[in-house]
Structure formats: structure tokens, C-alpha cells
């Protein structure tokens, strides 16, 4: 394992320290926590929005803290859900009295820890609403299992809920638009290489010289199948087919597209993927409102990508276009 780190057990703390140094105009760190909040939190008259999860997905989630997106990000250990006390501290710090929305990715650990924190906050008299993101179509959606994972589509939920909250909407309104976003966003990823949790010291899984994993999660959880390397066009087609099967789109529908790198994928390759994605959507006469290409929800130094599609109506596209000023997302 070659990484630019000091102590594998200190990576989250060191990272957050460096982040605060770099972006003290936007962020502050709640003392003695791994919680990053807006410099001006709590923003009076505004619903607070909190997201978070394990670290290792940077710029998620602290990169989205700022005007027009999140009020707070709770950063767990690498790939490990943060604990309820930290989430509670974040809720307390960003609540201006208008309540707090928790944006949770659908993982058992995140679900349980955020729920416990929500219960504690409610016991203190803070209004809390929750929205669970489960955009990953690689996972079967069944009531008998834990359901689908939340992956890169979460960034759209941050953006849209954050934009509405910035306008002074109520907690119920912000919750509703966040849920609407979740209902309209689908994603799927694939990996070319594994990644190494620093404290684990070795890769989470193995892929052969010519093997790729289709439907990869963002924590090294395996996907649908291991297969041999294919062309960018074929991979784009596979991911997009799976998404379109699940998110039926008609001619003239409007979407936002996110081509997300998992950490070690050159932008060049993401654009090559997008070439095919835009071709396919054009053929189907689906209108791309905006395309986001880059690293939005990573998995340490994993090579690979995910594609997300968000079906837009007028409200969603207006909120997507609204101003945002965060480290990783500016509009």
C-alpha cells in the first residue's frame, strides 16, 4: 500500500484538518468531532441539511457543504458510517429552529446510526426529517433485503434539497423535494481496479489483469458480475441500459447526467464514456439539460466510473440550476 498518509488510523482526522486549513472561508469543523459545517451555520430562517457517511468518498460529503447545498457533513471512519453522537452534534449545530433534513444513503450502518441520532435530536425538541437515497440499480430492489444502495445520485439530492432550503422553504417542503429527487434518480457503476482502506492495508477485493466488476458499490462491495474488460462504448451501454430499464424515459424527457469517476479514473476516460452516453440519449430523443463530468462520489483510489441520470421536471431543473458555492460544486 503506497499512499500519501501519515498514520493509517489518522487519515480522517488529518484530512479534515487539511480541509479546514484550505477552505476556512467556507467550512468549520465542530470541535472534537469529525463534523464539518458551513462557516455561517446555523443559517437563520433556513432548514438545515446534513449528509454524511463513511469517509473515502471525497469530495463527498464535506465538499458539498456551503451555500445552496449542505449545512453539515458527518465524516465517519473510512467506509464506516459515522456514529450517532457525531450526527447529533451536527444536527444541533445546524438547526436554526426550522428543523433539519438528514440525507442518508441506504446502507444498514448509515440507516441505524442516523436513525438513532434523529431519535436523540427529536428527544431534544429538534424537528428532524429523513430521506434515504437508493439510486443504485445494480442491486435488486426487494422488500426482503436491505434494498438498493445510495451512490453518486446522492449529490443531486444534496443540490436540489439545498437549493430549496436556501429559498427559505419549510422542512416538509425540503423533504418532499428531496424524496422527489430520489424517486427520479438512478445510477450504476463499474470498477477497473479495487481500492485499499488505509487501516486494512490491502485491497478490498481482486480483479484480474483483464477483469472488471459491473455494478460495483462505492465501498468495494461487489456488484452484479465480474467480466472481462470491454470497450468504453460497451460499458456505457451496459450501465445506461440498466438505468433506463428502471427509470423509464420517454422522448423529449429532460435529464441531468452525471459521469462520476471513482477516484483513479482520468477525466479523459470519463469524457469518452460520456460521448457514448450522449449518443444513446440523443438516439432516444432524451434531452440532456446538463452534464456533470468529474469526481463527485469516489471510492478512494478505485478506477472505474458510475453513470447517474436524474429525470427533471421544471421544479427540479430550476433547483439544479440555482446558485451553489461549495468546494466541489459551484454554480
Amino acid at each position, binding site marked *: 500500500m503506497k499512499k500519501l498518509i501519515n498514520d493509517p488510523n489518522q487519515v480522517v482526522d488529518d484530512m479534515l484538518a487539511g480541509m479546514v486549513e484550505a477552505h476556512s472561508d467556507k467550512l468549520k469543523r465542530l470541535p472534537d468531532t469529525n463534523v464539518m459545517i458551513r462557516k455561517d451555520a446555523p443559517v437563520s430562517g433556513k432548514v438545515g441539511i446534513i449528509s454524511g457517511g*463513511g469517509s473515502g468518498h471525497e469530495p463527498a460529503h464535506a465538499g458539498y457543504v456551503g451555500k445552496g447545498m449542505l449545512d453539515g457533513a458527518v465524516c*465517519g*471512519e*473510512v*467506509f*464506516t*458510517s*459515522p*456514529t*450517532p*453522537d457525531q450526527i447529533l452534534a451536527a444536527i444541533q449545530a445546524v438547526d436554526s429552529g426550522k428543523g433539519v433534513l438528514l440525507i442518508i444513503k441506504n*446502507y*444498514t*450502518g448509515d440507516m*441505524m*446510526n442516523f436513525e*438513532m441520532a434523529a431519535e436523540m435530536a427529536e428527544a431534544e425538541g429538534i424537528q428532524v426529517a429523513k430521506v434515504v437515497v437508493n439510486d443504485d440499480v*445494480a*442491486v*435488486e430492489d426487494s422488500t*426482503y*433485503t*436491505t434494498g438498493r*444502495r445510495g451512490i453518486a445520485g446522492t449529490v443531486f439530492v444534496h443540490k436540489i434539497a439545498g437549493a430549496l432550503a436556501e429559498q427559505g422553504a419549510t422542512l416538509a417542503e425540503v423533504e418532499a423535494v428531496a424524496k422527489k429527487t430520489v424517486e427520479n434518480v438512478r445510477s450504476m457503476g463499474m470498477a477497473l481496479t479495487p481500492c485499499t*482502506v488505509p*487501516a*486494512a492495508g490491502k485491497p*478490498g*477485493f481482486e480483479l484480474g489483469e483483464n477483469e472488471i466488476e459491473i455494478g460495483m*458499490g462505492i*465501498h*468495494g*462491495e*461487489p*456488484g452484479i458480475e465480474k467480466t472481462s474488460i470491454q470497450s468504453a462504448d460497451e460499458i456505457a451501454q451496459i450501465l445506461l441500459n440498466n438505468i433506463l430499464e428502471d427509470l423509464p424515459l420517454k422522448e423529449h424527457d429532460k435529464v441531468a447526467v452525471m459521469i462520476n469517476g471513482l477516484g483513479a479514473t482520468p477525466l479523459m476516460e470519463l469524457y469518452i464514456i460520456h460521448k457514448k452516453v450522449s449518443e444513446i440519449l440523443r438516439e432516444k430523443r432524451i434531452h440532456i439539460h446538463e452534464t456533470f463530468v468529474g469526481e463527485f462520489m469516489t471510492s478512494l483510489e478505485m478506477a472505474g466510473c458510475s453513470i447517474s441520470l436524474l429525470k427533471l421536471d421544471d421544479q427540479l431543473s430550476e433547483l439544479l440550476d440555482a446558485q451553489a458555492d461549495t468546494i466541489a460544486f459551484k454554480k
Partner: protein
Amino acid sequence: MLWNVEQAKKWIKRLNDKIQENKAYLTELDQAIGDGDHGLNMARGLQEAANKIADSHYDDLGSLFKDVGMTLIAKVGGASGPLYGTAFMKASLVLKDRKEADRNAFVAAFSAALDGLKMRGKAQVGDKTMIDVWDPVIAWMKSHETIRANELVDLSKEKMEDTKELEAKKGRAAYLGKRSVGHLDPGAVSSYLLFASLAESFEKGESAP
């Protein structure tokens, strides 16, 4: 039989030792069907819990269990943190104000812990989780007057090993579907270590409920 604060402390210390020894192993198991942090999570949390209780004085088992539970909730993270944390918290309610636990109180505490796990995680037997160890072990405790160390360790080991053939329905391994078959569930293994360290405490005469 009577189980007191000193004995419970020794158990937690022993459990922590076992978890530290098996940190890499638990992480490897989690790499196969999860995200590779179970050993790291458990080692971080148990170490904190062991430190915490070593430095504190307890008048009753309830406050000891509460401290362990709170520490696990605050330090483990992931799925296992809220689960183990809740288990200890629920047990602490049963053990509140008790300097010692007799067999019935002991079993009632572990039974409450299991209820806490089920309440929190909503998993059922067969879902390939720690429940697949806890549920049969608690049932066995309830139905046996004497909790024999060797039987406890054998049973929890057997149930842990049985998770290998299950298809995961809960937790991160569920995303693998059939590909989860053939691998031990990491949480079932840490639960086995929990019961095995309990059994060892009994054998060492550190306690004998």
C-alpha cells in the same frame, strides 16, 4: 451462580483481547462480502470500551454495561456499532442496580440484548448476520439450567460456521446475493468471539453463572 462486576469486567477485557487478535481476520472476512472494516470497527470500539471500564469504578452491572454500550455506539460506527451498542444498552436496563446477576438475571440480560439487536437491525434468523449466532445461543441459554462453558463455545462456533452456507439478506453482504454463499458472516464471527470469551471466563473461574 453469581456474576459480578469484576467478572464482567474481565470478560470485556478478554473479549477485547480476542477482537484485537482477530482484527485482521475479521477485516478479511468483511473484505470478501462487505467493505472490509469489521475488524477495524470492532477493534477500535472494544479497545475504547476496555479502556473506559478499566479506568472506572462500577457499583452495579447495569452501569458497566451502559458504559460499554455507549462507548460501542460512539466508537464503532458502521452497522455493528449501533447493533452491539444497542445490545449492551438493552442488557444494562435489566442489570440496572444489580451488583451481581444470578442465572436468571444473566439470561434475561442477554435475552434483552438479543431483542435489542432484532429491534435495531430487523434481521431474522437465516439472513446471514450476527443474529444467526445470537438467536440460537440465547434460546439454548434459556432452556438450560446450567450454562456450561464448553457447550456455549461449541454451539456458538457451530452457528457461526453455519452462516457460511447462507445467502445474505441483510447488511452489506446482501448486495452480493448468491455470491455471498461460501463465506462466513463477519458479524457472526465477532459474535462467536463474544460468546467464546464469555465461555473462557467461565472456565477460568472468573465467573460461573
